[in-house]
């Protein structure tokens, strides 16, 4: 007998635009974020497409140099601040935190909605900056280029970042309070799914790091607008101080971007091996470890920027330390697969992709943390490859894996399995073709943010551009088939994967209040065989 959608769920609990825009239901807010973030991803992606088109030939002939500079700046800003940082926490986190702890909603539902609006306002500022001329400072906005020399729309863009920062802070605050106070009876800290540990660690970084970037961009704005001098060498200021402040936030921010994905991967590996995560406590604590140690390494971005040698040594050593918790995670995921019941469904394919690509991205981070090596590699395409491996190959894989895994819960319906496997494959191939050649380019010395380059580098760049077009197709496909499945996909049932976890014990899609009765937790999160193991293979 075919499964059917439950008669009442959060999606049919009120229709019309108001029921969405004024909702306080964390699940609907998650979908609001999903919509906004997808838009930003495609904007950022469109910039990437233009970048790669320009770089297909060595001469700077496709767009002008100023346009190119605006392209990569806006690509970086949009992708980092408006897509990747909010992606997993605000979409999957919002949807899942209450479900996974057995609560009705977040601690502050109205604040949650407010965060979305703040995010949108920040986005509008950035959008305004974009259509009135763009910004050309690079996403790092180094002074004094940003404070004195550039003539572009830096203030609106800075305000955009400032404002979205508050959205991240409030979301983080909401999650922290929720996780502390609203866990269902019996849900002790060590019975929490690992995704929540990751979200919790991420929220901590948000709360502690984001205010510093907020004040930093504010100082830049004050310096531009009011001619105050903070980083201006002509009044005796130190431009390198800006870099300290910027990276104090932005290095931890890279962990904001990867930790949630690591959380997702822990869930995926457990669910598709039907097995508890190997070394649960190690994986849980390594999230906190990354969050804390992540604050101690920012100086590795400024090894050649006139930092003291001794500070560089300290930062280098600490950077190696922060790699250890990541290593622990990778090994534990691998060990989880040992003697599992490994299913090859789409989310698991993404999880496997994540582990492999994150490993490469992370290990190349070690090249950069070794100071003598970084001198040659810094500001080359090696850096570009390093972080795209982690952020695109890692986090986006995690995000898509998570989206597919929880899609039946979110929408109540299944997506087409064949097509989704196909696009996972396309993404994997396209990704490697795009970014692997960039490692080679980097060691050859090709600097980043170059609009034109010596002809020697062309072949590798063409490979990269070709890969990007394959990757683009790979990203477009899920958008279409997921949208399609919203209407035509077969109903999924409460627990299509036979996975354990509270979110699978309620209907798909869940009712507005999530659970008919407050669940009581007695078991560890990955206790197999789970109560319902019967649906799809």
């Amino acid at each position: 007998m075919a499964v059917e959608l439950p008669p009442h769920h959060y999606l049919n609990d009120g229709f019309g635009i108001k029921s969405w825009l004024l909702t306080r239901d964390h699940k609907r807010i998650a979908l609001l974020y999903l919509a906004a973030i997808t838009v930003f991803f495609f904007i950022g992606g469109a910039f990437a497409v233009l970048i790669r088109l320009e770089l297909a030939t060595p001469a700077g002939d496709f767009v002008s140099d100023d346009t190119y500079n605006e392209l990569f700046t806006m690509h970086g800003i949009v992708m980092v601040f408006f897509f990747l940082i909010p992606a997993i926490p605000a979409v999957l986190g919002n949807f899942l935190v209450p479900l996974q702890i057995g609560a009705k909603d977040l601690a502050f539902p109205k604040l949650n909605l407010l965060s979305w609006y703040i995010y949108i306002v920040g986005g509008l500022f950035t959008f305004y900056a974009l259509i009135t001329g763009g910004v050309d400072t690079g996403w790092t906005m180094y002074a004094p280029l940003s404070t004195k020399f550039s003539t572009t729309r830096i203030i609106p863009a800075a305000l955009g970042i400032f404002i979205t920062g508050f959205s991240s802070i409030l979301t983080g605050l909401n999650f922290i309070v929720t996780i502390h106070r609203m866990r269902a009876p019996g849900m002790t800290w060590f019975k929490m799914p690992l995704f929540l540990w990751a979200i919790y660690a991420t929220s901590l970084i948000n709360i502690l790091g984001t205010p510093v970037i907020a004040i930093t961009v504010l100082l830049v704005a004050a310096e531009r607008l009011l001619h105050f001098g903070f980083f201006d060498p002509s009044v005796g200021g130190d431009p390198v101080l800006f870099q300290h402040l910027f990276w104090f936030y932005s290095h931890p921010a890279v962990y904001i971007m990867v930790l949630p994905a690591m959380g997702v991967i822990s869930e995926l590996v457990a669910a598709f091996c039907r097995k508890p995560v190997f070394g649960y406590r190690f994986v849980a604590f390594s999230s906190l470890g990354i969050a804390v140690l992540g604050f101690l390494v920012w100086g590795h971005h400024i090894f050649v920027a006139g930092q003291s040698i001794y500070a560089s040594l300290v930062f280098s050593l600490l950077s190696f330390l922060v790699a250890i918790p990541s290593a622990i995670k990778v090994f534990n995921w691998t060990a989880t697969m040992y003697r599992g019941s490994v299913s090859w469904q789409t989310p698991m394919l993404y999880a496997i992709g994540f582990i492999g690509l994150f490993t490469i991205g992370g290990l190349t981070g070690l090249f950069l943390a070794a100071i003598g090596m970084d001198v040659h590699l810094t500001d080359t395409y090696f850096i570009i490859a390093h972080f795209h491996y982690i952020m695109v190959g890692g986090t986006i894989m995690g995000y898509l894996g998570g989206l597919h895994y929880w899609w039946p819960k979110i929408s109540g319906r299944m997506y087409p399995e064949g097509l989704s496997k196909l696009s996972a494959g396309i993404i994997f191939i396209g990704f490697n073709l795009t970014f692997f050649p960039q490692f080679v380019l980097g060691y050859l010395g090709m600097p980043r943010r170059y609009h034109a380059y010596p002809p020697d580098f062309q072949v590798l760049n063409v490979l990269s551009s070709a890969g990007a077009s394959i990757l683009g197709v790979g990203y477009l496909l899920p958008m279409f088939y997921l949208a399609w499945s919203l209407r035509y996909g077969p109903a999924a049932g409460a627990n299509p994967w036979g996975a354990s976890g509270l979110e699978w014990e309620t209907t798909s899609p869940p009712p507005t209040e999530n659970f008919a009765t407050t669940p009581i937790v007695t078991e560890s999160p990955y206790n197999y065989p789970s109560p319902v193991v019967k649906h799809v293979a």
Partner: protein
Amino acid sequence: MRSCTEMAERTEHHVVSTTIYYAIFAALLALTGVTVAVAYVDLGPLNVAVAIAIACFKALIVVLYFMHVKYGTRLVKLTVIAGIYWIGILLALTLSDYLTRGWGTYGAQLQ
């Protein structure tokens, strides 16, 4: 926005007596006087240290009494400590750069 205000971690309903409040107030005023006075005395490098020590002490009693942390839960205390700790990280590691630049900076000569 009512829910928003639940943000205060639930402190026990500890009502502090007015005497304590007035005492703290008096102490704060006195300490302000002391810092101003001390600023005019030349203590060499100690001037900064004293000024900051007094400010820290003032902040401490505000936090403990006016802000009720003394009567708060462990979590509240932990949060306060975390704040101080993180500011410490920010200052300490950045200073680790600035204060050692004189010994050798990448791009400047090692002695």
